[in-house]
């Protein structure tokens, strides 16, 4: 185990999540991509805490921040999907963009 390996894992998770967020049309699937990206960030922050500055708690605070962002993203995402579905009966990004006009 080393810092580089953990960060490579984080980069891999981030890239996979980015791929999902860019390709998926369904808003819920898009949010899954965002969750994977945040998972990568959590691994990276924890690895930086452990391998670079374990004496300070700032790396841990970064993990707390990422976890909170995850929760907020889920809650707001589902609320937006609910509002969009109620107003327009759509759950996909392309359909929502078309209906804007």
């Amino acid at each position, binding site marked *: 185990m080393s810092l580089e390996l953990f960060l490579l894992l984080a980069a891999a998770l981030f890239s996979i999540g980015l791929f999902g967020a860019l390709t998926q049309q369904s808003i819920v699937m898009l949010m*899954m991509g965002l969750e994977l990206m945040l998972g990568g960030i959590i691994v990276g922050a924890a690895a930086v805490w*452990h391998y670079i500055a374990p004496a300070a708690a700032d790396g841990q605070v970064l993990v707390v921040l990422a976890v909170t962002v995850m929760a907020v993203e889920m809650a707001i995402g589902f609320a937006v999907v609910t509002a969009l579905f109620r107003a327009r009966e759509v759950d996909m990004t392309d359909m929502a963009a078309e209906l804007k006009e």
Partner: protein
Amino acid sequence: MAVLGDVIFWVLALLAVASGVMVFRFDSMARATYALLTSLLCVGGEVLLLGLDYLGVVIVLMMTIEMAIMAVFMVMYMMNPAGLMPMTMVHNTKGAAVICGAVFAVLAAGILLAPWPSRRGRPSHDPTMDLGLSLMGPQMLTMMTLGLTLFATIVATVVLATRRGRYDRFGDDLRSRTADDPVRGGMSR
């Protein structure tokens, strides 16, 4: 002990990446949700492996509940929750693959080429205690911002998800004296 740590790291890392890929390959939305759960549980495992017991357990518990809620929303909103009718709901796969490959290459180059500083200090006996003291001390502003953000999220979620807001009840200019509700309130119903 070091060898055991290596083995656990590789198992969790490969499982996390593999199930992360499977999230976007499964036809069934329910399966995709469980693949994401597996991936994020492995993330929690890696955090535990790094010695952050409290945060690792928090991540594991939070992800389990979050994915359970996500599965419910999946079944509510998806056209194809069980994968009975395979369909593709993707756009611009090639462009996204190029972008993500480039992002990974840049990140990996940065990770491998950067002169990382050597480890400074040792983890204290109780990192959770450190985190608590930090959040209630020097990082208080972070904690307060997080708290306010979460509160704003609760309000915004309710506002977005509610069917009838105040403009539906009191008119567009909010001038209506009585609320226009389907069921009138009060005693003399």
